[in-house]
């Protein structure tokens, strides 16, 4: 049974944006758990994505600055063309180092550093995508006792990403997007 996490990290690529939009539209204004979104995006599309998410979200969506402290009741969107790390003191750290899994931001990087810091207090979710980024990272989260959810590949628009994770391990939950949204909405009451 899932406990109330201290932080939620959601990774996704192709086919995940509409789910992320549905998630943000559904979360109540008083949803206090910080949410970190690591989504593959066009490098040069630097602006506009956070605004478009803000339009539908009741919780404020921002792209974090380097060394910014993670706060309650915030949605953080990893900036285009940067990797997003979480430091032990619960601040963000950015990097423009090489792409991993052909991706920057790489989902693996945020998952790896988040589970180092939060361990079992972390909820990791991996959504639809057309490459294997995030699979090794969510496995690492699972091994460090984080709660792990993978989108059901049968429902995912692109199943490569969830399938890559499922080849490595069995997550705590394999859910359709509607069930993921339902579960997230129970967490605030816990």
């Amino acid at each position: 049974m899932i406990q109330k996490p201290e932080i939620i990290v959601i990774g996704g690529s192709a086919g995940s944006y509409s789910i992320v939009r549905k998630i943000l539209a559904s979360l109540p204004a008083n949803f206090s758990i910080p949410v970190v979104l690591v989504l593959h995006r066009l490098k040069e599309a630097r602006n506009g994505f956070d605004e478009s998410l803000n339009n539908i979200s009741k919780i404020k969506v921002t792209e974090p600055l380097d060394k910014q402290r993670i706060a309650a009741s915030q949605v953080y969107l990893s900036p285009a063309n940067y990797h997003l790390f979480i430091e032990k003191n619960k601040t963000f750290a950015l990097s423009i180092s090489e792409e991993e899994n052909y991706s920057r931001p790489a989902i693996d990087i945020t998952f790896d550093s988040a589970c180092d810091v939060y361990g079992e207090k972390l909820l990791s979710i991996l959504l639809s995508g057309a490459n294997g980024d995030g699979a090794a990272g969510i496995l690492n989260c699972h091994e460090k006792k984080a709660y792990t959810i993978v989108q059901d590949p049968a429902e995912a628009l692109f199943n490569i990403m969830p399938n890559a994770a499922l080849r490595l391990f069995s997550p705590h939950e394999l859910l359709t997007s509607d069930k993921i949204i339902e579960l997230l909405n129970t967490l605030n009451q816990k």
Partner: protein
Amino acid sequence: MSGKIAEIEEKDIKSILDNVKLTRGVDFNDYAQSSLRRRITRFFEINRIFNVSEFNAKIRNDDKFAEFFINEITVNVTEMFRDPSFWVFLRDKVFPDLIKRPVLKIWHAACSTGEEVYSMGILLKEAGFQNNIRIIATDLNQGALDQAKTGIYKLNNQKLNQKNYEMFGGKSTLSEYYSKNNNEVTYDSNLIKNVKFQKHNLVSNNSFSVFDLIICRNVLIYFNLGLQDRVLHLFNNSLTPESYLGIGSKESIDRTRAEKHFSTISFDEKIYKKI
């Protein structure tokens, strides 16, 4: 981490960094821990190093190995005109003010392999700002500086560079500025004729001159807050009043000693003016 090599513990990182400092005089202790740890793990994987004592012996005895390590830890990933809107702002809002000065001195701090130095050369050329400009470009990594001096880059990267250049509103095409040979391109050395390259480590070296503009983009992100504070203090000491500082678009001078010495010219582009 998800490699074949076991995760490196925190105490091992400390041992590695202390040894590098002791044997090579380069201090990474105040680098941001999470990304540093990932780079060290990556270095261990690439070089098939299985434990810290093996590493410590090699860093002491093998100069090539040490050079490669320092090269790998310092991130040398950059683009020409990275964040085009930053360069547009410089060209349209900052240079019209700067160019009135009799002599204009620019410092590219931690210039890595020099892409932004060439970007600046192109900006200045296209805007017709070429007289009385002196530029110093520094990095701690000699290999990166050597590459910057030659202006030789991978052909592959030019597609992205060209895209950035177009978004910057360049007057020509980038290929006007380089010649092609196989999988490489060589940028026109005229673009850097006002540039002096020299070795300088922001972590351990002091201010060495004063400037009208300092560009140091996506370098502070690799430092912890304490080191960011020291480096921004160094920049403050290296700028004349009314001079400009440009950092990475996701970096910030908040929560540092330098904050009160600067006014924000552009929050989005992270361009500051010394008060």
